[in-house]
């Protein structure tokens, strides 16, 4: 099964044409090359892929691993893990 990190990596690379080598757990979203608007766009894509709903209040992230953790938390809460 695809892990959340793998799914996110694929979406980021597809949507923003970013080199996957830039995506590491500790890389900030800025390091990866996605800004706050891109993050919203990415979150929408994740919601569609996983059929989950991520509340706006939760989207405060500093690095890639934070995003993975957030999505895993929401997946567990919403029974879609």
């Amino acid at each position, binding site marked *: 099964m695809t892990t959340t990190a793998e799914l996110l990596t694929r979406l980021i690379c597809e*949507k*923003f*044409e970013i080199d996957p080598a830039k995506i590491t757990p500790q890389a900030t979203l800025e390091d990866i090359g996605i800004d706050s*608007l891109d993050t*919203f*766009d990415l979150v*929408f894509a994740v919601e569609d892929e996983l059929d989950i709903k991520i509340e706006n209040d939760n989207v405060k992230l500093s690095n890639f691993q934070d995003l993975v953790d957030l999505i895993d938390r929401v997946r567990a809460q919403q029974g879609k893990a």
Partner: protein
Amino acid sequence: MGRRVAVTGQGIVSPLGNDPDSFFANLMAGRSGVGRLRADFVDRLDCKIAAQVEFDPQAHFAKRELASLDRVSQFALVAARQAVAAAGLDLAQLDRSRVGVTMGTGMGGANSIDDNYARVYRDQATRLPPFVVLMAMNGAAASQIAMAYALAGPNLTYSTACSSSAVAIGEAMRLIRHGYADTMLAGGAEALLTYGTIRAWEALRTLAKEDPADPSASCKPFAADRSGLVLGEGAAVFVLEAWDQAVARGANILAELVGYGSGNDGSHITQPTVAGQAAAMRRALADADLAAEAIGYINAHGTGTLLNDKTETAAIKAVFGERAHRLPVSSTKSMHGHLMGAAAAVEFVACIKALGEQAVPPTQHLVQADPDCDLDYVSGRGRSGVPLHAVMSNSFAFGGTSAVLIAARPATAS
């Protein structure tokens, strides 16, 4: 009086070509950019003609950039790139707090608005992509140009319908003239050929009936059988500079922007007045400190609507007197359609090229003139070898705002 203003670069995306030389050559040859609308919704429309551009977004922008650029901003950016390149402007060498942008547009990101209304109302979508507001807003094109070149000077978007980009160019001239900026990228962009927008225009009953024999000949300004305007899309952007800066850097000065006059009829949302149009022409002449005799060509507003063309003819006669009958006046809209917020900018490219090449583009599809339209409309093909020292571009809008620009040959002006 203030500083003189040089035009040192121009760029265009139009239904008659995506560079100034092709555009002007097509105008001079009397070719039409009007045709059957290429859109998947065309069968559902009553109006099936338009003046569309040939434009491949992916040839100009990365996929990621396109996700946040409405078609109108794409046109504007491509035209701006051409203008900056043509001007030989090395922006890194300039104080970019002294470089600004003014753009005109009627409907801004009309495609983004239409697409997302369809998602919300037709498809019942409950959420939209995060860029919709930023793509749809009227000021997006001007902002995108500023971001592309890190321009921190004045950044303004004018929306006065059909005269928007004449206002943008004229106001940019004033910003330079009066010292608020040294360099301006000024022009207009429009991309409104959407299902919803065309339907709204149909309701206004000002769109040309399709010529059954030749759809490309549907727009017939000043003709007895004219039936209205043809909607178009595109953009044009100019580099305007303080004259001394342009001279100091050895720029190729295409023309001097010498006059701008504007005002409002103050009477009716669609019906133009002779007094309002004539006042704008007189203001531009006074601003340029030129006598009417100095004008060698007028690029008319010439929409092809019943009311505009006879009103404009009367206004030109009011300003130019007897000489009006010996003054070449043409409506290039007969070929490139009505680009609304980009119309004046695209037509100003025709004016700058006319000055440079000493040639007057024609009015096409004018076989028999309306008796009320009795000027020299340069019917059919363009005229070369016409001595031109100064040219005038007229723009008269729904909502009543008139704007008139005058450009002069640099040799004459200096």
